[in-house]
């Protein structure tokens, strides 16, 4: 009983320590604030402005920012502010879901490769090499070309392009942990495989994996925006941020606000995940900090 409580307090202490180190970094805290900001926009989109405003057309076309439309209006007279607020849901949903999906698929395969080794490892790694010969954007494009442009296919396309690097990371992290002395020590006093995996391998491998997944969200948001920009991703009239830019390109010389504002929001979203991930890495492993 006593031991259990001790272990629990040790864990909370560790979390406190990580949080203390995370808090010390100004950039990490900036990232966290931006992240909360973007999350709030996505969660409270309907409270901020009804979806109706994002799709209702008016006669005020291509207007610059004004009191009535603080971000101006687009070529169909739709309110850009409302479109950006509701578009945040797409960007976040796409970024987070594809990164997590890539983590699950890549993590599982990578862990299998590292754990079993031998021919299983060889086959998985050779296949990964093959997938990695196609640059990620091209791979996504090929998938979208075959399946057609839609939200679902976009998710499939960018998840696939992210799996190989995740797989490699998980494999190398697990391999690194398995070789550590403390695993050897645990084995020598007779700990079971299950106990070693649960108590030593997973906690020690988790850090870099969480960090990379956080940073992947940023990359996935950028890839999704790119594909939607080519009108091969989320289809109009959905206000995904990349799709907004795709429309803006036609009017960028007469209504540049359509180009500036969605781009700034994409940067804020991607930056928040990058900064938070960076801070998390330094907080989890102070040794790595330069």
């Amino acid at each position, binding site marked *: 009983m006593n031991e259990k409580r001790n272990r629990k307090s040790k864990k909370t202490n560790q979390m406190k320590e990580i949080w203390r180190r995370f808090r010390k970094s100004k*950039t990490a805290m900036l990232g966290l604030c931006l992240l909360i900001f973007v999350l709030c926009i996505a969660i409270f989109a309907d409270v901020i402005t009804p979806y109706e405003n994002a799709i209702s057309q008016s006669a005020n076309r291509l207007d610059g920012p004004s009191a009535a439309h603080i971000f101006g209006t687009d070529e169909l007279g739709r309110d850009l502010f409302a479109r950006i607020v509701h578009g945040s849901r797409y960007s976040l949903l796409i970024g987070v879901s594809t990164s997590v999906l890539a983590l699950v698929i890549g993590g599982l395969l990578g862990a299998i490769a590292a754990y079993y080794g031998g021919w299983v490892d060889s086959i998985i790694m*050779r*296949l990964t*090499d*093959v*997938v990695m*010969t*196609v*640059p*990620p*954007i*091209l*791979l996504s*494009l*090929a*998938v*979208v*070309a*075959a*399946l*057609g442009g839609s939200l679902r296919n976009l998710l499939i396309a960018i998840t696939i392009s992210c799996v190989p690097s995740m797989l490699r990371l998980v494999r190398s992290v697990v391999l690194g942990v398995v070789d550590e002395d403390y695993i050897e020590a645990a084995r020598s006093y007779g700990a079971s495989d299950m106990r070693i995996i649960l108590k030593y391998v997973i906690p020690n491998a988790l850090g870099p994996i969480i960090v990379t997944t956080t940073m992947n969200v*940023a990359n996935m948001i*950028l890839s999704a*925006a*790119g594909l939607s*920009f*080519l009108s*091969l991703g989320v289809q109009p009239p959905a206000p995904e941020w*990349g799709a907004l*830019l795709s429309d803006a*390109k036609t009017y*960028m*010389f007469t209504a*540049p606000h359509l*180009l*500036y504002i969605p*781009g700034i929001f*994409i*940067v804020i979203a*991607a*930056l928040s995940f*990058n*900064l938070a991930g960076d801070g998390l890495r330094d907080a989890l492993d102070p040794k790595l900090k*330069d």
Partner: protein
Amino acid sequence: MYKYVIKRILLTIPVLLGAVFLVFTIMYLTPGDPGTLILGITAKPEDIAALNHKLGADLPFFEQFFNYLKGIVLHFDFGTSYRSGKPVFDSILSRFPTTFQLALWSMLLSSVLGIALGIISAVKQYSVLDNALTTLAMLLSAMPGFWLGLMLMVLFALKLGWLPFGGVDTWQGYILPVITLSLGAAASEMRLTRSTMLETIRQDYIRTARSKGVPEKTVIWKHALRNALLPVVTSMGMNFGGSLGGAVIIETVFGMPGVGMLIVESIRQKDTPVVMAATMFLAVLFCFVMLGVDILYAYIDPRIKAKYKS
């Protein structure tokens, strides 16, 4: 050394075959048969079936793949466009120089910028300059390349009028696309150089060099840099791959008729053979670049050299 090079070349062959197979499989998933795509849905079913038979599209999957592979290996035949009826390979080749120049120049520019700024940043760690450069790199890596391109276009082509809007008629047209492509890559290259450089500076042999009185400049340039740049060389290869991929979107932004624009146009026109062949072409090219980088790496890294010394 030859042993290593030959081994590396032999290892590339199955990867290449795998890449071709992967792209072929993905494109095979395209709904609809070529007959319908070429003749349209209003055509007579007999005609469509006859055309499918002629193209070999009614054969089993593996037979189709081997026929395709046979065409590539024996006749350099990558298929025929559904739309123009011309061999796909010709249109890829005619558009290739644009893409290659874009990728090559942006790889060179980003490497020079990234490595130089990374070294400065590491040597002057925590200075104002270092902070400014790291912040800039952070911002650039969070920026979609196509958006950066459009912003540069508004600034330099529209507002200032210094440069053309893109296009391939003059060499000035390449400036904005190359800068756009290289800035993002330079940011990641800079961060990599900075961190490997910082790591190297802390090694024992650097401390030894310093303590025996080697001037700081020699320590940085001769002892640290040569070791720190090894991982950076590999990233240059990846960088080229990234530029090839990035070129797909950037070419569309700047209206440059390269292989990337060909892919995007062909996706819109559902011209599967062109998409397939162009994607394969870029993947194969990337594969060769990585092969080159690996061989170069072996020449630079004394550890690999020693392993294969005979």
